[in-house]
């Protein structure tokens, strides 16, 4: 029999980003005993990196007057290209203002309304009313009819996460950081907790709970080139899918941002183009007007991304050790403008690329940014297929974003879902009884011990984890990117099929002692390739274009056949995913035109 430490709680939350911490707080406030697991200290979670803001229809700022949950609802459904669950979008928009105000009560220093006249970029004059002075203000974001995005300067995610974590600390909630969930304990019907690996010592542990919540964030790192933190590897999603009974929803819905800086893939915000920056190719030709004569660089986010990739494919990309890229040119805006209005961009360029945008061109390429897909849940946040398993935040497909999420809607999702689903979890947990046998725990720990042994002893082979990983990243970036077509997607599926087989034969060189980092990567690789496979297979099957999913060979949205959500299962023992479909819930707003203009018939994704 195995020898391992067991920790038990009412609620186990895997992930200490905004979503996980908010749900933990909701459960703890109901008197439940909660443990949170996280790869890193909570404040280092990826939520901290969000700069732009969080949407809520407070309607305090001059350009937000008249905003309401109804207006927010319409924006969100259009943004999703009618791929979202409308009942969920409704819950979301109604609760977002409460969530923002509660974060304020807890300590977020939201920027506030300052009364008086202001001149905007384009010369229009607005006036903030003295009656609203001191209330939470908002900024403009893409795809929103009103200024609705609440913010704290350029550090919204940071302030939200720090304040949330301060409540977690205040409530005395147990956090085990540097702990990685590597498998979900279940009997095919009910979830009992997880097997985790301590990233300090390498020891396996068991966490049992009445309710288990996956809040592990997105999977940006499958693409290699991503604006996401390097811990965003989708592990919560693949351990859920590995149960064989829990499906992932809409994995093919992947959002790209036009200007990730090469090679660090840190985000250069839309502000650079908004202020008049140009995109240039290897001949320094400004190419956007050739493709989009009207909107040029300011077409919607996904349109610009598509045009850039199209241009690179035609052979106009700039060669670099990090792959081909294009240039962003802001030099003509002048030193004064760059060092004041675009200071943040200038700093990123200096710190991470060692270039001065006053004199130098900025190397950029469209970059993976957000995962709309994830663990499919019902409106109460419970995963399909396993009783007692919940999912929230970017890891989940709750599904309020459909095929395209609007900027500012994901931070809002984390806090609103944490609050609303947190209540549901508390309710469920209070009534739940569970009885888990030691035999089941032994069995699940045994499986993981066996995997680790196989990796260390190279029993199944000696494939190099980093090589497989690089090939997987390249396959997704090359064939399952912004432009998709049947031929490329088939190539990707074939390649991922091969990589999946190779991922089963990984062995490690490091010996795997203690908290060995190569072993940690090796334990993840199979699951990551599975997720990549689901993305490619889902995209190949979906013969239409919707939101961020753009098929050159099927450029139109096809509501007659595809107003439905992909559910990707991976049956135990299978060598490929199994795709099923379910209808999208339409409760208020029937499918129609998104109204984003001629060149941007597709998604407008919003800033940052």
């Amino acid at each position: 029999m195995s020898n391992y430490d067991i920790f038990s709680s009412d609620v186990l939350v895997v992930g200490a980003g905004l979503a996980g911490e908010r749900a933990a707080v909701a459960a703890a406030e109901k008197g439940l005993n909660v443990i949170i697991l996280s790869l890193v200290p909570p404040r280092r979670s990826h939520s901290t990196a969000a700069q732009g803001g969080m949407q809520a229809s407070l309607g305090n700022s001059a350009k937000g007057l008249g905003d309401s949950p109804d207006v927010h609802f319409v924006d969100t459904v259009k943004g999703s290209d009618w791929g979202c669950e409308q009942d969920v979008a409704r819950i979301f928009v109604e609760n977002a203002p409460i969530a923002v105000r509660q974060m304020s009560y807890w300590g977020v220093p939201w920027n506030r309304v300052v009364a008086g006249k202001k001149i905007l970029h384009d010369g229009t004059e607005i006036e903030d009313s003295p009656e609203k002075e001191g209330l939470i203000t908002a900024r403009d974001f893409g795809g929103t009819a009103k200024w609705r995005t609440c913010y704290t300067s350029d550090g919204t995610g940071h302030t939200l996460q720090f304040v949330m974590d301060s409540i977690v600390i205040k409530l005395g909630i147990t956090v085990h950081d540097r702990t990685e969930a590597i498998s979900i304990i279940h009997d095919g019907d009910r979830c009992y907790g997880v097997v985790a690996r301590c990233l300090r010592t390498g020891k396996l542990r068991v966490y049992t709970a009445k309710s288990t919540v996956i809040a592990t964030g997105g999977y940006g790192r499958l693409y290699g080139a991503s604006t996401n933190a390097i811990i965003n590897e989708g592990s919560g999603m693949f351990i859920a899918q590995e149960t064989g009974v829990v499906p992932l929803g809409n994995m093919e819905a992947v959002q790209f941002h036009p200007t990730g800086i090469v090679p660090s893939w840190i985000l250069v915000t839309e502000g650079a183009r908004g202020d008049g920056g140009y995109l240039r190719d290897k001949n320094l030709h400004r190419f956007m007007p050739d493709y989009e004569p009207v909107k040029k660089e300011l077409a919607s986010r996904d349109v610009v991304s598509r045009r850039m990739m199209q241009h690179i494919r035609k052979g106009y990309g700039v060669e670099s050790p990090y792959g081909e890229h294009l240039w962003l040119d802001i030099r003509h805006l002048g030193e004064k403008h760059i060092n004041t209005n675009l200071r943040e961009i200038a700093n990123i360029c200096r710190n991470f690329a060692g270039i001065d945008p006053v004199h130098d061109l900025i190397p950029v390429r469209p970059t993976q940014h957000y995962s709309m897909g994830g663990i499919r849940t019902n409106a109460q946040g419970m995963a399909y297929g396993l009783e007692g398993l919940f999912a929230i935040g970017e890891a989940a497909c709750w599904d309020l974003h459909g095929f395209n999420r609007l900027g500012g809607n994901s931070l809002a999702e984390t806090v609103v879902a944490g609050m609303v689903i947190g209540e549901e979890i508390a309710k469920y947990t209070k009534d739940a009884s569970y009885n888990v046998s030691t035999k089941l725990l032994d069995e699940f720990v045994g499986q993981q011990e066996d995997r680790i042994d196989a990796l260390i002893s190279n029993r199944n082979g000696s494939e190099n984890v980093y090589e497989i990983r690089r090939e997987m990243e390249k396959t997704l970036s090359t064939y399952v990117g912004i432009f998709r077509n049947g031929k490329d997607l088939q190539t990707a599926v074939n390649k991922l099929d091969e990589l999946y087989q190779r991922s089963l034969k990984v062995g490690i060189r490091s010996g795997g002692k203690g908290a060995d980092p190569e072993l940690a990567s090796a334990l993840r690789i199979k699951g990551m390739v599975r997720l990549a496979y689901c993305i490619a297979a889902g995209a190949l099957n979906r013969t239409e274009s919707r939101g961020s999913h753009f098929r050159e060979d099927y450029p139109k949205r096809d509501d007659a056949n595809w107003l439905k959500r992909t559910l990707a299962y991976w049956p135990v023992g299978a060598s490929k995913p199994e795709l099923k479909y379910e209808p999208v819930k339409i409760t208020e707003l029937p499918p129609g035109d998104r109204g984003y203009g001629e060149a941007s018939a597709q998604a407008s994704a919003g800033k940052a």
Partner: protein
Amino acid sequence: MSNRLLTFNIFRYDPNTPEIEPKMQKFQVEEEERMTLFIVLNKIREEQDPTLKFDFVCRAAICGSCAMLVNGKPTLACKTLTKDLPNETTLMPLPAFKLLGDLSVDTGTWFREMSIKTEAWVHTDKVFDPKAEEERMSNDQALAIYEAERCIECGCCIAGCATVNIRPDFLGAAGINRVARFMLDPRDERTEQEYFEVVGSDDGVFGCVGLMACDDNCPIGIPLQGQLSYVRRKMAVAGWRR
């Protein structure tokens, strides 16, 4: 670009295997355009030594994970460009924190304990009313709080602080800055006397010798000097009133 061959002397030690002595290990990496230490360390791990331990999360100077001593100076490795480094560079883990292995240290536990000691959350008797409008605050007040709240808990200020070496329980510049953040916040109802209990000691503001190594080392430019003197002034007055 003619590529330099860079040499890195990296500290190696695993506290889980104390029988193996700490040592410095030499690695060589060919420099590439726009290379950062994030790229270098990953290359070393993937191509030369898969056991090397280090921490990066955001790789964008936002999360505070990757602080280490680069040629003796505490700084964020993710925003250190190789083009600013000499041909030979020494990388050491941050001192003052528990070593987890090689370049990885446990800043997370240190900062959580600091938060507990300073009770770093808003103290209020008010109850949240989901139906009410938010309480008002001036934008200037909000910005001042944000200025102190920007700390990413990287530990650079702690690692370079003389007092930390003498007083292991010293809150450090980051801790005192955290207290300043709540003192500035109108929502926090703690009195000066209550704050005095937290920082009015030699482990708090009165231990600081004011040489400002912290201020020089803070990678995101928190005005630590100003925050320290703000708290010290307030606490001197509060102490005098006792």
